[in-house]
């Protein structure tokens, strides 16, 4: 039923356009019914996008190869789960997912944020409508998922690297993050358009921003795990432009989440926060542009397409329009206070922001420089790992340290004498950890040693914060230690949820430092391994036993068998190999990963080639790499704590804004 899909998209476009025009007129003329009608248009647009998505999903599941999209991205033998994930495996489906998530977020924001103030919401609707109109227009006029052609007997199948369970979850998570950043952007622009100087837009978007940021973070970790298990090179992050495209808005949103606290606590950094919201949203659009336009050669750019100029035009329009709006309304954004001391919580947040933005812009330059150079001179260049690694150390290590320093310093100001006492335990943790690591030989990598030492400092400060807070809460309320601990978190979920997220970042830093700075790599060079021969790495012996080939549904599997020993102890068998996908006519490398939980490291085996019955292999031993995935679990836990509704806070806000509404009605 492609006609129904097309009709639903046309209806969605019409409704989005109505939300822009009627919503804009209603907000300008302060017309209540028209404003409500425009809000309803956004809700209806979600319904239309959902119907279009359902039509595509049904076509995928029914193998309706008369749809070009279905025949280009699936085949009859493709497992059902990947037939479903093919929805976002191609450009048109991805754009439809963007629209579905966007209209879903918009409808939810309209329904859940009615308390944000009618006047503010009236201006939010046309801003959301502009974004929805752009994506609807792309899907109707440029990249329709419902284009048809004479149906072939079978489809072309799905890119083998996308046939992985992580690819079922990774793109939707990223999109929930990318698209979610539209909501704080729309509320920020709505606040400026309605000329409101209060912080209602921040209150209304706290959870949306946090949720989008959490989805983006989880999406990236899922993507990193996908790269680790699927791409077959033994790494998890290659500074690929498309990976960077997801990292940049996350970094900008991280900066915003910190600096917005300064605005809430001290009424400062109002212009800066607006700029960060705009930056995060524009970078999320830029990320989609990079992934979908085919402007960069990347393992993620699954397509070359015509949507690039459209996207570029839209990004330029959004950036220019929003910055003009921020500048024209800057009189509304005067701070009510200023930084009293360079040694204060707000000052550390400012340093954190400067580092995060510097890192974001450095990565942005690394991504855009080769594109601009090629566009201007025709010369193809690339920005290598060295560039990114240097700036990650230059900005990332101080950021890590600040994560430990920030929580220890009070708002407004702190004396050196007070700081000395507060820093004592975390500094002692860092000194002991650093000394112990030096003693066991971790000094072979200075950045690794510094990262570990700073991580110990951060963990020390987090533990100290929880311990002192629980003790003080118990002294105030009495009761058990557990009750005091629970009450401590319940009374300030954002702060303590944030500390849990900091702990996740420490795990990530330790995992990245361990697995990159201290990894062992061995490979067969010119001479392949014959059956019975061994390769040794980091105390392990990998003895090659032989090759086998087998069929597995839509692909064949070539596997090399290795028995792994440590000394005389047999640890098990690992089977690296290669798959060959029949319909897609593409190979994929299948790395064999085994975890040595006792030593906290992974043994990765990669089959690089065969020569008769002999094999070329690469072995990587990666210490602490699993901490990166554990960091994801802790990250989600921290985000849930921070997102959990706080009834006390809700009551306070209801009182604050409820009375304002009552006065508006009077």
């Amino acid at each position, binding site marked *: *039923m*492609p*006609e*129904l899909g097309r*009709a*639903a998209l046309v*209806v969605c476009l019409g*409704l989005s356009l109505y939300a822009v025009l009627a919503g804009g007129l*209603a*907000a300008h003329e*302060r*017309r*209540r*019914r028209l*404003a*409500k*009608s425009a809000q*309803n*248009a956004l*809700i*209806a*647009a979600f*319904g*239309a996008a959902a119907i279009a998505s359902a039509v595509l999903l049904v076509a995928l599941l029914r193998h309706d190869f008369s749809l070009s999209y279905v025949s280009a991205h699936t085949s009859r033998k493709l497992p059902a789960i990947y037939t479903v994930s093919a929805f976002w495996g191609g450009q048109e489906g991805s754009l439809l997912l963007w629209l579905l998530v966007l209209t879903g977020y918009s409808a939810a924001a309209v329904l859940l944020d009615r308390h944000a103030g*009618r*006047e503010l919401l*009236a201006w939010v609707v046309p801003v959301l409508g502009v974004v929805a109109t752009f994506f609807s227009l792309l899907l109707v006029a440029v990249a329709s998922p419902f284009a048809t052609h004479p149906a072939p007997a079978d489809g072309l199948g799905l890119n083998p690297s996308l046939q992985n369970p992580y690819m079922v979850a990774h793109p939707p998570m990223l999109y929930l993050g990318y698209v979610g950043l539209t909501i704080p952007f729309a509320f920020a622009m709505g606040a400026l358009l309605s000329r*409101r*100087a*209060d*912080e*209602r837009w921040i209150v209304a978007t706290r959870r949306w921003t946090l949720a989008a940021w959490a989805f983006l973070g989880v999406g990236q970790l899922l993507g990193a795990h996908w790269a680790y298990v699927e791409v077959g090179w033994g790494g998890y992050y290659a500074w690929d432009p498309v990976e960077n495209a997801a990292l940049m808005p996350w970094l900008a949103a991280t900066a915003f989440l910190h600096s917005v606290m300064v605005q*809430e*606590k*001290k*009424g400062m950094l109002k212009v800066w926060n607006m700029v960060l919201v705009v930056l995060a949203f524009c970078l999320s659009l830029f990320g989609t542009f990079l992934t979908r336009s085919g402007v960069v050669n990347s393992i993620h750019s699954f397509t070359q397409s015509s949507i690039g100029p459209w996207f570029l035009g839209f990004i330029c329009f959004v950036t220019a329009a929003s910055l003009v709006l921020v500048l024209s309304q800057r009189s509304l954004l005067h701070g*009510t206070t200023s930084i009293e001391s360079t040694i204060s919580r707000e000052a550390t947040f400012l340093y954190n922001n400067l580092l995060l933005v510097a890192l974001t812009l450095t990565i942005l330059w690394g991504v855009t420089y080769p594109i601009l150079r090629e566009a201007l001179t025709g010369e193809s260049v690339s920005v290598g790992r060295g560039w990114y690694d240097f700036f990650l150390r230059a900005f990332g290590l101080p950021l890590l340290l600040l994560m430990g320093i920030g929580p*220890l310093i*009070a*708002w*407004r*100001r*702190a*004396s050196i*004498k*007070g700081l000395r*006492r*507060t820093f004592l335990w975390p500094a002692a943790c860092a000194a002991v950890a650093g000394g112990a690591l030096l003693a066991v030989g971790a000094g072979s990598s200075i950045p690794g040693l510094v990262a570990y030492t700073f991580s110990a400092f951060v963990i020390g400060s987090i533990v100290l914060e929880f311990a*002192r*807070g629980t003790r003080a809460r118990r*002294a*105030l309320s009495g009761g058990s230690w557990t009750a005091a601990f629970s009450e401590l978190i319940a009374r300030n979920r954002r702060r303590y949820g944030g500390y849990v997220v900091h702990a996740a970042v420490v795990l990530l830093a330790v995992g990245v430092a361990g697995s990159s700075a201290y990894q062992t790599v061995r490979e067969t060079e010119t001479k392949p391994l014959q059956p019975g021969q061994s390769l040794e790495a980091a105390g392990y012996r990998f003895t090659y036993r032989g090759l086998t080939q087998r069929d597995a549904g839509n692909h064949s599997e070539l596997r090399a068998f290795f028995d792994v020993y440590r000394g005389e102890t047999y640890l098990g068998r690992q089977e690296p190999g290669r798959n060959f996908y029949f319909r897609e006519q593409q190979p994929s490398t299948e790395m064999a990963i085994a975890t040595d939980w006792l030593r906290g490291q992974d043994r990765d085996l990669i089959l690089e080639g065969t020569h008769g019955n002999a094999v070329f292999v690469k072995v990587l031993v990666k210490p602490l790499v699993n901490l990166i995935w554990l960091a994801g679990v802790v990250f989600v836990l921290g985000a849930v704590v921070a997102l959990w509704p706080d009834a006390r806070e809700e009551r306070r806000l209801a009182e*604050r*804004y409820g*009375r*304002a509404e009552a*006065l*508006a*009605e*009077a």
Partner: protein
Amino acid sequence: MTAALVLGALLAVACVALVAVPFLREPDARREQDLLGEPGPAGRRRLELAEERDRALAALKELEFDHRTGKVSDEDYAVLVGPLRRQAADVLRALDRGTETTSELASGRNL
């Protein structure tokens, strides 16, 4: 094809109906009844003061707690608490004055 077109038309009609609901519910709303509620200058000022009040009270609460945990030393506490208390008191006083003024304005308008 026909079924798809009929379903598409039904979708369009349903969407138009949803968009028209506010006008269908209140077809005869007069211009003044059809205005978005907007706080006047007094309402906006009150909202800003309420935000400042919450900010000052939260800062005081946090300072007290940080002092109890030992994060803020006695000397720092002594320096910081006075201005914060004064700020909170000023905002509360201004808020009281503002509320009285707003009530007077509202009652005057009702008369």
